[in-house]
């Protein structure tokens, strides 16, 4: 059974910004939304959580579906006197133990983390809350090659228990995740 199903979904803001997009996503699946800049990949994702408008088509959700969403630019304040441990606890991200590479930095204040480390922490905070469906908007932002590997490991950890919809301009990263690719410009699945 699908966790979520999009039927010719057209998303946008004041005006439609995407071509109609159809897809199904089941538990244990990773779907990659891929396309050129300006195709509306992020807008589609935002429409699923009410941050963008739905102009056409429809979204079918399984009953009681729990969603979590990592935006393209996680909130990073100039002053954040919280440790990574506290951040994960406040976010309720305690369904999975954090990866060792991340755990080693969890005693640091958030504002002492590098951009890549903070991105990995935010990614983990979205993955470990135990949601049925995880929506990730450009999760590889700010990540160098080593961090890209860690991000892939984070997304694959426990992936059989949830569905994952990933927006990325990085086709190699989506392929490394084993994601089924949906080209947003055409709205047709190629995977």
């Amino acid at each position, binding site marked *: 059974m699908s966790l979520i199903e999009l039927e010719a979904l057209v998303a946008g803001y004041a005006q439609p910004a995407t071509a109609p997009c159809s897809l199904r996503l089941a538990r244990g699946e990773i779907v990659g939304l891929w396309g050129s800049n300006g195709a509306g990949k992020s807008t589609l994702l935002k429409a699923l*959580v*009410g*941050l963008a408008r739905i102009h056409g088509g429809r979204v079918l959700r399984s009953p009681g579906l*729990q*969603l*979590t*969403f*990592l*935006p393209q630019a*996680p*909130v990073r*304040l100039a*002053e*954040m*006197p*919280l*440790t990574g*441990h*506290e*951040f994960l*606890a*406040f*976010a*309720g991200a305690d369904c999975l133990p954090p990866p060792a590479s991340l755990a080693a930095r969890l005693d640091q*204040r*958030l504002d002492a983390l590098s951009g890549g480390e903070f991105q990995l922490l*935010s990614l983990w*905070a*979205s993955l470990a*809350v135990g949601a049925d469906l995880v*929506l990730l908007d450009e999760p590889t932002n700010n990540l160098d090659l080593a961090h890209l590997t860690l991000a892939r490991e984070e997304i694959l950890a426990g992936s059989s228990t949830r569905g994952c919809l990933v927006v990325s301009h990085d086709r190699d990263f989506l392929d490394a995740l084993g994601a089924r690719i949906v080209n947003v410009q055409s709205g047709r699945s190629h995977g």
Partner: protein
Amino acid sequence: MFSRVGHMDEIFHFPFLTGLLLAALLPVLGNLLRLRDEWLAALGLAHLAAAGGLLALACALPVMAGAISGALLGVAGKSGRAGRSNSAYAVMVLAGWSAGMLLAANSAVGEALAHAVVDGQLYFSGHGELLASAGLACIVWPALRWLTPRLIAGRLMPAQEKASAKAAWRWHLGFDILVALAVAIATACVGLMASFALLFIPSWLAFSRARNWRQTNLLASAISVLAYLAAFFLALHFDQPFGPTLCALLVLLLPLVGMGKK
């Protein structure tokens, strides 16, 4: 004022305990206000609380009731569509200040009483003010244990709050009301600027020094209480107004923000 060294006259017990409770409590709210980038809202609410208190005085009503009403009016404005911005908070400051000063100038309240509200009248606090502060503490501490994780998660992961489809407005409004009550009671007891200073400066200092959130709360409260104790006794000993003395002491601590930082 002191019957012998180290012993305070009984008439100062109520004011001392009232101020002590507020000094411990306000910085914890200030930390959340700072994290939410709403510290200017505290100044806006304090001005509206002062105006409400003055209006109550002019109408021969309890100052506390007027101050709470004024601050809650600010919460209503803050909950509006364009209410959560520094521009809106600045309007609250200006509206509260002008209303308060005009009320003072055009009523029997007079400027002297207006100064009392703005500068604070802690040494005239009685058991009513102490009860209000203790009641506030009894509400704020348990409420913050529940609210803090939600407010912090909402601040750092606002999209997640939207995605989870939870009625987050309830805890944001709940926090706004807590702050309004605290600011109103503090304004009626220690004055407008001293209330704001207790919400603003200890948090600023703690944010720059603490290693985690728990330490941020402890450090901010400790700074606030120490500054309060010093201000209370210095103002009494040298016959100075309490509010400006406290503000001056807190401002003198500000160089600590940059000290020792890389």
